[in-house]
């Protein structure tokens, strides 16, 4: 690429006329390239030639085109400063210039500039902004703005801040002697073309603001605005919200309609709760052992590994949703200088298939591709550019096949088959009681279809790592969730014995279920094997978005009936789930959803059927919550809706229907003791959030150091708030059918107590939990522990880091090994010190006096020498039901949300979240709190902003510009998390799983809060704001 830096504007213009592309801040190009724009051959730098600064002049405000948006944002200018705030995050605002935003033509500042009647000055002279937009000519030098007395601005996007624009509206108005004498109205931004709404302006001129009929105004605005549909929002929504925003901004808000809020009779008495925060935790709060390195950027992730002889790998993806492969020709790629290896299915010596449940997914496709991200070939080259060029030289000839775009279509008789065995992957049916008799008793019935999104895991570290020859085999290092199983799957593909393979899976920059299945390991291993050299491969975000596993979208049709008192007497459930192109763990997800089909309630009669189908819509599989959170959404909304019909408050309704502790589980299976549903209901009923209603409690949230104040979030005049609650009920472990076992060992080496545990550190705090559990059990310090994990060579197989099983695996491992290990330590110490064992004890740092209160070590761990591993093998506790997969251990909780619904935009703001949890003793407070908070906010994303719409088998969102995970502005103002830690006397099962509780019931809590605010329940997630507006209208 040529980059010139002209000395004068004239020179710049000549270069631009010769085909150069002008660039000032350069903040927008990477996004454009990611959307398919080709990088220009010649950049002409103009930033240094542009005037900068803001000048107040007689005829308006004059701004140099080179002024960074951040400077304008801070300058307190009418309309434009606010608009600059909404353009992008501060980092980008520092780079981007006013002239650049205008010249780009799609910038969301443009409506603001139109409403400010900007004059654009170029070297050719001055023109009005509308004329400039119609025919952009010349380098923009200055903009002169003419504000009016009253201004309004609003950008509507896909989340609260730093979002692509759906539509932005700007208005300005001046009154003289009570009459409108000047008014400017404009919309634009994103896909909406910039436009000034002249006809409406003409209609307004001369009217008094009080006399303006708002309904007619909005109608006229909607007619005047031209706006498109897109995959995210409809044209109707765009017009409607822009009109409402302009009307409200210039003429005031519409009236509020009163809604009958949910009744909250008397406060319950809460159980004993531990507040989870540093202030409340005191001595229980520790810095996690992995924290210092992470904070300093010193932790080497597996994708950070570099070495001089390391090659760079890339994968060739199908790029089409469904096609037969006719031929793959790699000759040209292989001939390219710098290419060390090209691999295709022809290089696979073993089974060309993988999958945790069944091996229907090719490592590299041979005869057919089933989704756009399907891998067809891979290359390893000396650098990334060469690898990219080699990919482009691989010639694959396809014959496209009809695309299966939905579950309904997939299950239709005439559907093309994604796999030869047919499109139905699994069907799960559960029945209980006599449904007809149940319906006969039903007085109130609620029926609806709940829809849940294709959520993306969005781990910040995308799939990747490195692999290299090691001895006669290979070492494969890729972020994962079960190294031993990855090794088994790789061994099958490579036809290499497992003992020739070493798999390292930690540390990982987030997983959430999305790295449970193999990701890039097969391609990486094949490349390292063929090239005989170390190879690294790290997916770009765009590739990860296209190729990675997602949450299975589900459609849950649910019909629930209760008698006059509120007892649920019948329920029918029909679930459809989209597996995408392969099965992975999707059958398990469906099973888990079906296992939670009546939630924690006693329902005598039900029929439930779930079906999972192959489609060409990407690939689905494990994601935190694993089907349970989807089903909980449906159940917990049904309960509230029935409660409203019966006239019971939500807590009383739940109490009436709650399962009895000790009764069989949903499938009739035996379940573990220490059920805590009643306690969680009491915690919710006593909660200040629940009792505070719309305005919220005055004081809310944990005590905190350094906070400005502690209060629940306030609502604005255009918002209506409501409070909702839902119960969490989450099965832990893999269930009765799959093998669910663990190995664990404690050893003494190099002065440290080595905890050898094959689980992975994916951010959840597994390592912190190991340190905590060992220190608590043995009496040593937390820093006396060293964790050996996530490496099949150094750590034993402890099973998968999934299904909320990690806490139990850690705790039980320590319980099993502690007695033997303690005895060995004390025996050794007794020999060395010539003292009886009874006088000695493990203390922080080594061995100390048993009788002293604050024991100091008399012998350090280093002085004890080495102690051979004390090992344990154990199973995750299982139930007695084997006809289907059933859980034995459950964790419990209650989630409460206070939510504000925006009357203009239909968008939701989560004001406060509160979560009470009952998952047994908390091993490490900071990690546990982190799991809850992080899970809650991931659930907020699921509920409000995250989805991956597919059009004809292709994902619409390609990167984080349109896939909207919650940003810092989207999270609740306050979050409070508590733990009810006690177990029943004699309960032998220790801590319950914490990983999936956070996300488990936040969606129905929010939905129920919306209903409290507006009187109707949204059933499609992420809640479309348009649907919220419709519901609000319908409720009137």
């Amino acid at each position, binding site marked *: 690429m040529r*980059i010139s830096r002209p000395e004068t504007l004239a020179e710049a213009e000549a270069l631009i006329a010769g085909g150069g592309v002008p660039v000032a801040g*350069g*903040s927008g*190009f*990477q996004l454009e390239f*990611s959307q398919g724009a080709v990088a220009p051959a010649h*950049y002409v730098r103009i930033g240094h030639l542009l005037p900068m600064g803001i000048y107040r002049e007689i005829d308006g405000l004059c701004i140099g085109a080179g002024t960074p948006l951040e400077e304008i944002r801070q300058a307190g200018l009418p309309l434009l400063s606010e608009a600059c705030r909404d353009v*992008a*995050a*501060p*980092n*980008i605002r520092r*780079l981007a210039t006013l002239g650049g935003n205008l010249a780009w033509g799609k910038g969301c500042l443009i409506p603001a500039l139109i409403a400010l009647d900007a004059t654009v000055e170029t070297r050719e002279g001055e023109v009005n902004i509308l004329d400039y937009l119609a025919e952009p000519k010349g380098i923009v030098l200055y903009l002169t703005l003419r504000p009016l007395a009253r201004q309004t601005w609003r950008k509507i996007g896909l989340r609260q801040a*730093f979002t692509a624009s759906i539509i932005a509206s700007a208005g300005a108005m001046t009154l003289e002697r009570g009459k409108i004498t000047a008014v400017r109205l404009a919309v634009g931004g994103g896909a909406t073309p910039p436009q000034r709404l002249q006809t409406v302006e003409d209609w307004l001129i001369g009217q008094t603001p009080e006399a303006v009929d708002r309904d007619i105004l909005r109608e006229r605005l909607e007619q005047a605005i031209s706006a498109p549909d897109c995959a995210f929002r409809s044209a109707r929504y765009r017009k409607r919200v822009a009109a409402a925003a302009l009307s409200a901004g210039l003429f005031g808000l519409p009236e509020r309609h009163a809604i009958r809020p949910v009744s909250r009779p008397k406060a319950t008495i809460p159980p004993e709760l531990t507040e989870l925060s*540093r202030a409340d935790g005191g001595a229980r709060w520790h*810095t996690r052992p992995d*924290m210092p*390195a*992470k*904070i*300093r*950027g*010193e*932790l*080497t*992730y597996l994708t*950070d590994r*570099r070495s001089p002889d390391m090659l760079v790998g890339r994968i060739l993806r199908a790029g089409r949703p469904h096609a037969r492969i006719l031929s793959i020709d790699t000759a040209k790629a292989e001939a390219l200088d710098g290419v060390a290896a090209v691999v295709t299915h022809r290089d696979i010596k073993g089974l060309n298939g993988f999958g945790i449940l069944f091996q229907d997914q090719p490592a590299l496709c041979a005869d057919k591709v089933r989704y756009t991200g399907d891998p067809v070939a891979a290359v390893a080259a000396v650098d*990334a550019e060469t690898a990219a060029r080699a990919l482009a030289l691989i010639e694959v000839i396809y014959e496209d096949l009809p695309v299966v775009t939905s579950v309904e279509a997939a299950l239709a008789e005439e559907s093309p088959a994604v796999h030869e065995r047919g499109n139905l992957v699994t069907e799960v049916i559960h029945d209980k009681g006599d449904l007809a008799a149940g319906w006969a008793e039903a007085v109130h019935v609620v029926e609806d279809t709940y829809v849940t999104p294709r959520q993306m895991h969005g*781990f*910040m*570290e995308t799939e990747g790592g490195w692999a290299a020859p090691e001895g006669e085999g290979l070492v494969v290092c890729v972020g994962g969730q079960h190294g031993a199983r990855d090794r088994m799957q790789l061994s099958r593909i490579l036809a290499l014995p497992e003992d020739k393979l070493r798999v390292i899976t930690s540390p*990982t*920059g*987030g997983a*959430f279920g999305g790295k449970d299945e193999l990701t890039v390991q097969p391609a990486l291993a094949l490349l390292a094997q063929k090239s005989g050299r170390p190879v690294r491969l790290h997916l*770009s*975000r*765009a590739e990860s978005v296209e190729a990675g596993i997602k949450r299975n979208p589900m459609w849950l049709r649910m019909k629930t009936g209760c008698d006059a008192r509120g007892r649920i007497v019948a329920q029918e459930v029909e679930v459809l789930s989209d597996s995408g192109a392969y099965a992975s763990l999707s059958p398990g997800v469906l099973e888990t959803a079906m296992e939670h089909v009546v939630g924690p309630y006693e329902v005598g009669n039900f029929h439930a059927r779930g079906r999972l189908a192959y489609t060409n819509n990407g690939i689905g599989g494990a994601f935190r919550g694993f089907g349970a959170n989807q089903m909980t959404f449906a159940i917990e909304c049904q309960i509230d809706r029935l409660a409203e019909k019966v006239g019971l408050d939500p807590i009383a309704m739940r109490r009436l229907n709650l399962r009895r502790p000790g009764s069989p589980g949903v499938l009739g299976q035996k379940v573990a003791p220490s059920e805590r549903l009643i306690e969680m209901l009491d915690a919710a009923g006593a909660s200040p959030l629940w009792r505070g209603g719309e305005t919220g409690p005055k004081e809310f949230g944990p005590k905190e*150091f*350094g*906070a*400005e104040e502690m209060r629940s979030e306030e609502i604005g005049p255009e918002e209506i708030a409501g409070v909702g609650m839902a119960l969490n009920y989450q099965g832990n472990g893999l269930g009765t059918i799959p093998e669910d076992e663990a190995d664990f060992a404690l050893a003494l080496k190099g002065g440290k107590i080595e905890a050898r545990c094959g689980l992975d550190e*994916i*951010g959840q*705090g597994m390592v912190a939990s190991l340190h905590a559990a060992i220190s608590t059990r043995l009496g040593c310090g937390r820093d006396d522990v060293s964790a050996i994990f996530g490496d099949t060579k150094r750590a034993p197989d402890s099973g998968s880091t999934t299904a909320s099983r990690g806490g139990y695996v850690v705790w039980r491992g320590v319980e099993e090994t502690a007695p033997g290990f303690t005895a060995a330590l004390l025996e050794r110490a007794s020999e060395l010190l010539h003292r009886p064992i009874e006088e000695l004890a493990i203390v922080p740092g080594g061995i100390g006096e048993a009788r002293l209160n604050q024991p100091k070590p008399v012998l350090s761990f280093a002085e004890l020498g080495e102690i051979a591993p004390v090992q344990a093998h154990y199973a995750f506790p299982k139930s007695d039901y084997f006809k289907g997969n059933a859980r034995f251990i459950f964790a419990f909780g209650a989630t409460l949300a206070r939510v504000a619904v925006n009357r203009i935009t239909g968008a939701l703001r989560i004001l406060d979240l509160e979560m009470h949890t009952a998952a047994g003793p908390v091993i490490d407070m900071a990690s546990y*709190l*982190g799991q809850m*908070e*992080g899970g809650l*906010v991931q659930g907020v994303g699921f509920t409000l902003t995250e989805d991956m719409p597919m059009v004809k088998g292709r994902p619409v969102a390609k*990167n*984080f*510009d349109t896939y909207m995970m*919650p*940003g*810092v*502005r989207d*999270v609740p103002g306050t*979050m409070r998390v508590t733990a009810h830690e006690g177990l029943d006397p004699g309960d032998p099962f220790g801590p319950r799983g914490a990983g999936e509780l956070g996300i488990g019931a936040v969606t129905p809590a929010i939905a129920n809060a919306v209903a409290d605010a507006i009187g109707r329940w949204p059933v499609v997630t992420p809640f479309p704001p348009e649907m919220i507006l419709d519901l609000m209208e319908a409720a009137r």
Partner: protein
Amino acid sequence: MIRFTLNGQPAEIAPDAMLLATLRENIGATGTKAGCEIGRCGACTVLCDGAPMNACLLMGWQIEGSEITTIEGIGTLAAGAVLIRAMEIENGFQCGYCAPGVMMSLTGLLSRDPAPSDAGLEEALEGNICRCTGYHSILRGARLARKMLKDETT
């Protein structure tokens, strides 16, 4: 080649090369992370002459003569050193992959304004995506750093 300063040391970059790729691929300074490469996640945040910027949006020609500070150099900045202590105490992160970017965004802010409002702290993080924490632990760490900076000066 374009010259710039990387954590106090002289460094070079091609005019049309992306700073992020140069750091991670050529120089091997992998502390700075890649999360999206289009300016939408903040994982790559570095300080450019003290101001937080996205290394994936900076090309060589944009940083001629600039002083670039990455997470590897955070400890040399007074506000950065305090922020490190505060984040450790509050356990700001989980997987830690967003941490280098978040730390640089906050260090840039606190170096310029040691006593930002809560809203100011949030605004500084608008461009940083964290998938693990839900942001509250990060904000607690940032608020603690603000308090520690205040306590230091009073």
